[in-house]
C-alpha cells in the first residue's frame, strides 16, 4: 500500500495561550500542503502523535491524569504501535475547544469509572499505528524504495535490503504531508514491549520536587485571586451583603455576587480575599431547607425502610412469604452517611473573560464538561471559548460531572473583563458544597429454615438516588438502576449470592443535599450492607462467616 499525499485536510486557526506549551494547531504556512502543527511548529503525524526534529514524541492524551496512571498508560499504548523510543516520549493534553473544532478527533475526554484506558485503547493504538505507517512511507519515499521493504523500531526506520536507517524526527515533516492510511493492523498483545509493562510513570519526578503545577498553582500575568462563599444551606440564596465593610481592606479589588446564592471577594492575593470574605457581612435567605438537619434526613430515610412502595431491583421466589414462615428471622438496619470527595486540592478554576473570548484553566476529569460549563456561564459560542486542563490534586468523581467551580470562576471573571481571576475554595467551602456520595439506610431481613439454611432475604434500601439529580434521563420509569449496583440479577453489577426467595428494593428518599458519583459509586454501601448481614446470618446459624460466605 502506498500512502498518498494529503489533499484536503482542513486547517484550523486556533489561538491558544495554554501554559506549558499547549497546542496551536493549523498554522497555515505560506508554502506546501496544510499540516497541523503543535505550538512549537512540530508537525502532527496523527491527532495523537507529534514528532519533533530531535525525535521527541509528543503523545496527546485526552483523558485526565489524577494519580491513576492513565497518562502513562495511554502513552504506552500509542508508543507501542508507533514503535518509538520510550525514553523520547512526552505527553500533552489537547484542549476541548480544539476537539470541538476538529469534530471530536480525540473522542471522549471524560475520565471516570475506570474507563479512561478501557474505552479508548483501540483508537489511540490506531493513532500510533497510523503514524508509524506514515513515517515508514515517508522514509521509503525519500529512499525511493517500497515501504514494504522498510520496518520501524525504537524510532528508527530501516530499509532492510540496503541497511539504510533514518530516525522519526528526520521524516516527520514529510510524513505529516501524507494522507493517513485507512486500515492499519494493530499488534498482537503478545508482541507488546511497552504497553502492558510496568514502566515508571512519566509524571512522577515533578510531583516530588514541587515543580508539578496543579490548578491552584497557576500563575498568569495580572491575575487576581478570589475566595467564595455559597449559601451554607443548599437551595438558599443571598439576601444581601455589605461590600463597603471590606472594600477598604488590604488588597481587596472587588466584591461580587456570583449567581443568586454566592458572593466572592477578589483581591491581589487569595489570603487577602479570604480574610475580607470572612469579614464580609452576608445575610442569607436559607430557603426551604433552612430547618433540615441530620436528624430530619435520618427520619426521612427511616420511614422508607418500611414503606409499602419501593422500586424492585432484584426478585425471585416470594421473600416475604419465606420470611413469614421462617424458623428463625434475623433483622438488621444499617446506615451509610454522606461522604465528601475531599480532593486534597480544593476546587478551583481560573478564568479570563472578554466579550470576545473566555478562557478557563482548571483541574477537571472531563475537559468537555468544563468547556460546556464555560460556554453556559460566559454566554459565548464554542469558537470563542477554551479550556486548558491543569493537573488535578485528586478527582474521585467530584471533578467529573460537576463543574460548579468553573461556572463560578467564569461568573466572577465576567464582572472583571480582561483580568484573569483564580477562584480557590477554602477547605470549609469544599466540605460544605460537595456533591456527596449519597446517604442511605438499609434494612435486611433474613429467613433461616429449620436446618439453618438461608431460605429468604429481603434487602430494603431507603435513600438517595444519584441519577435522579445528576442524570434524570437515565432513570427507568422513575427507578434508579444504579442504586442496585452489586445487587442486580445479572450483568456487570450482579449479586454474588443465590437465595431461594429474594427481594431487593429501593424506597427512593431524596434529601435536599446534592448527591454525586463517588469512587465505586453504589457498590460501596451495598457491599457493606450485604456482607455485614451475611456475617450476622452466619453467626445466627452458628457458622463461620468466612466458610459460610465461600460455600
Amino acid at each position: 500500500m502506498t500512502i498518498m499525499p494529503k489533499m484536503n485536510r482542513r486547517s484550523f486557526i486556533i489561538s491558544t495561550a495554554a501554559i506549558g506549551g499547549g497546542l496551536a494547531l493549523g498554522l497555515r504556512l505560506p508554502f506546501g500542503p496544510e499540516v497541523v502543527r503543535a505550538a512549537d511548529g512540530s508537525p502532527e503525524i496523527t491527532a495523537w502523535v507529534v514528532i519533533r526534529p530531535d525525535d521527541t514524541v509528543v503523545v496527546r492524551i485526552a483523558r485526565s491524569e489524577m494519580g491513576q496512571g492513565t497518562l502513562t498508560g495511554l502513552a504506552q499504548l500509542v508508543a507501542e504501535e508507533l514503535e518509538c523510543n520510550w525514553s523520547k516520549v512526552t505527553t500533552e493534553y489537547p484542549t476541548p475547544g480544539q476537539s470541538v473544532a476538529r469534530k471530536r478527533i480525540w473522542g471522549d475526554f471524560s475520565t471516570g469509572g475506570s474507563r479512561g484506558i478501557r474505552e479508548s485503547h483501540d483508537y489511540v493504538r490506531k493513532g500510533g499505528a497510523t503514524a508509524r505507517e506514515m513515517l515508514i512511507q515517508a522514509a521509503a519515499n525519500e529512499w525511493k524504495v517500497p515501504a514494504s521493504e522498510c520496518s520501524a523500531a525504537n524510532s528508527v526506520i530501516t530499509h532492510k535490503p540496503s541497511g539504510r536507517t533514518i530516525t522519526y524526527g528526520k521524516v516527520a515533516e514529510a510524513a505529516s504531508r501524507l494522507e493517513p492510511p485507512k486500515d492499519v493492523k494493530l499488534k498482537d498483545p503478545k508482541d507488546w514491549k511497552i504497553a502492558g509493562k510496568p514502566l515508571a510513570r512519566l509524571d512522577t519526578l515533578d510531583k516530588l520536587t514541587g515543580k508539578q503545577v496543579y490548578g491552584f498553582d497557576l500563575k498568569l500575568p495580572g491575575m487576581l485571586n478570589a475566595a467564595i462563599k455559597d449559601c451554607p444551606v443548599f437551595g438558599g440564596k443571598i439576601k444581601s451583603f455589605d461590600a463597603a465593610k471590606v472594600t477598604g481592606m488590604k488588597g481587596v479589588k472587588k466584591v461580587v455576587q456570583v449567581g443568586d446564592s454566592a458572593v466572592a471577594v477578589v483581591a491581589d492575593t487569595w489570603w487577602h480575599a479570604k480574610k475580607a470574605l470572612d469579614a464580609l457581612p452576608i445575610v442569607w435567605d436559607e430557603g426551604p431547607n433552612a430547618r433540615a438537619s441530620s436528624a430530619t434526613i435520618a427520619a426521612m430515610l427511616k420511614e422508607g425502610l418500611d414503606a409499602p412502595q419501593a422500586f424492585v431491583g432484584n426478585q425471585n421466589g416470594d421473600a416475604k412469604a419465606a420470611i413469614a414462615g421462617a424458623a428463625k428471622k434475623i433483622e438488621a438496619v444499617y446506615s451509610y452517611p454522606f461522604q465528601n470527595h475531599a480532593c486534597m486540592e480544593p476546587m478551583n478554576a481560573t478564568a479570563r473573560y472578554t466579550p470576545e473570548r473566555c478562557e478557563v484553566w482548571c483541574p477537571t476529569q472531563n475537559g468537555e464538561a468544563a468547556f460546556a460549563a464555560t460556554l453556559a456561564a460566559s454566554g459565548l459560542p464554542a469558537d470563542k471559548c477554551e479550556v486548558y486542563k491543569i493537573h488535578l490534586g485528586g478527582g474521585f468523581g467530584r471533578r467529573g460531572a460537576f463543574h460548579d467551580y468553573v461556572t463560578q470562576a467564569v461568573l466572577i471573571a465576567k464582572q472583571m473583563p480582561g483580568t484573569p481571576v483564580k477562584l480557590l475554595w477554602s477547605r470549609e467551602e469544599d466540605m460544605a458544597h460537595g456533591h456527596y456520595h449519597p446517604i442511605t439506610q438499609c434494612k435486611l431481613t433474613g429467613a433461616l429454615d429449620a436446618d439453618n439454611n438461608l431460605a429468604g432475604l429481603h434487602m430494603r434500601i431507603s435513600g438517595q438516588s444519584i441519577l435522579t439529580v445528576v442524570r434524570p434521563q437515565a432513570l427507568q420509569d422513575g427507578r434508579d438502576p444504579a442504586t442496585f449496583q452489586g445487587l442486580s440479577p445479572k450483568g456487570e453489577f450482579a449479586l454474588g449470592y443465590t437465595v431461594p426467595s429474594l427481594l431487593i428494593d429501593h424506597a427512593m428518599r431524596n434529601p435536599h443535599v446534592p448527591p454525586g458519583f463517588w469512587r465505586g459509586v453504589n457498590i460501596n454501601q451495598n457491599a457493606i450492607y450485604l456482607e455485614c448481614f451475611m456475617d450476622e446470618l452466619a453467626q445466627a446459624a452458628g457458622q463461620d462467616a468466612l466458610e459460610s460466605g465461600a460455600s
Partner: protein
Amino acid sequence: MIELNINGRSLKVDVEPDTPLLWAIREQVGLTGTKYGCGVAQCGSCTVHIDGAAVRSCVMPVNAAAGKKITTIEGLASGSVLHKVQKAWLDHEVAQCGYCQTGMIMAVAALLKEKPRPTDADIDATITNICRCGTFQQVREAIHAAAKA
C-alpha cells in the same frame, strides 16, 4: 516588610505579620510546591522545615518564622541531586495525584534526621499527613527504603 530566609535565600515579603507562612511562601515568594489542603494543620500538605523541624505552615504566622531557616520542597534537593527521601519516593512510585506528597516528603525528611531508622510505630506517630489517594503503604515502604539509603 518581614525578612525571611527561604532555601538559603534572604528575601523581604510585604505582608501583614499574621499572614500564615504558607500564603507568604506561595503568594509572595512564589514557591507553589508547598500546598494548601485544610488550613488548620490537619492534613500536612503545607509542611516545611523551620530550622530543620517539620512545621505545618498554614497555621504559623509569617512573623514567627522571621530570622529562622525555612526550607521548602523546592530547597530539599541539593541542586539536581534528589534528597534520599525524594529518591526513595521515585524508586517506589509513591505518588498518585501527588498533591500531598511534597508535604509528606518534607515531614519524612525531618523524621529521618531525628530518627534515622524509624520503626513502623515511629512512622505512625509522626507521619500523620493525609493522602486522599491512599498511598500510605507505599509511603511506609519508601520511608524504610530511604532510611537504609
